[in-house]
């Protein structure tokens, strides 16, 4: 299951549309990091609204994405974590430490634009 990565201005938007295998997640990680470089993107949004399970591997991979992209000088925002998924993540002990999160795509874009405008 390929995750499409769209470019919108200085930002990239990856919308996860179906359940992802570990291999799909790793491919998303590689794809995003490469595209941040090739597009000189300043921010990345990963929309996980349709993910019904965020297990330890998915959570670790998304954290790695954010760390790698930060090393490129860009910021990542994870948007759309469902309430049930958030509950299960906390019970499981998973943390998305140091990764920005936002309610939905709109708030994620607002967060990145604000950060971009303040020259961070």
């Amino acid at each position, binding site marked *: 299951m390929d995750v499409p990565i769209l470019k919108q201005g200085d930002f990239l938007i990856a919308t996860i549309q179906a359940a992802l295998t570990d291999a799909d997640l790793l491919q998303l990680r590689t794809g995003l990091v490469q595209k941040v470089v090739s597009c000189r993107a300043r921010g990345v949004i990963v929309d996980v609204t349709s993910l*019904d*399970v965020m297990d*330890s591997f998915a959570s670790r991979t998304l954290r790695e994405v954010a760390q790698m992209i930060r090393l490129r000088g860009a910021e990542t925002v994870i948007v759309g974590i469902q309430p*049930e998924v958030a509950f299960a993540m906390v019970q*499981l*002990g*998973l943390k998305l430490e140091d990764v920005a999160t936002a309610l939905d795509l709109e708030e994620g874009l607002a967060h990145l634009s604000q950060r971009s405008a303040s020259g961070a």
Partner: protein
Amino acid sequence: MKDLRVVENEIHVPINSDQDIVAARQKGRSLATALGFSSGDATLIATAISELARNIVTYAKSGEIQITVINGSNRQGIQLVAHDEGPGISDIPQALRDGFSTSGSLGLGLPGVKRLVDEFEVVSAEKSGTTVTAKKWKP
């Protein structure tokens, strides 16, 4: 017998690859939803299956997950049995402590799964595989 259970429904999912992890958790969610679990509890069950199946792929390469409907005295639930014939766990109390992992992963596997369910048991011995049994009851 005090706790008589009648098996109504049982799904076996062979676990050999990361694709099977997704298949197992989707089957578990469908069964939980069909049984009347809330969406939140179905998510907990699906997440637990994902972690148990992941342990099989990571440590034992292959195994099986059984998802069974169980009947208690006045309630229904789902039992997950994750079985493999992999290297086994030599120190179960250590594996159940938060923050312990031998594969460099987050090390939250078993204690995390234990928090997602109501009953949890690990049977394992070195070189003879691992069986994890987890139960989640409908409130």
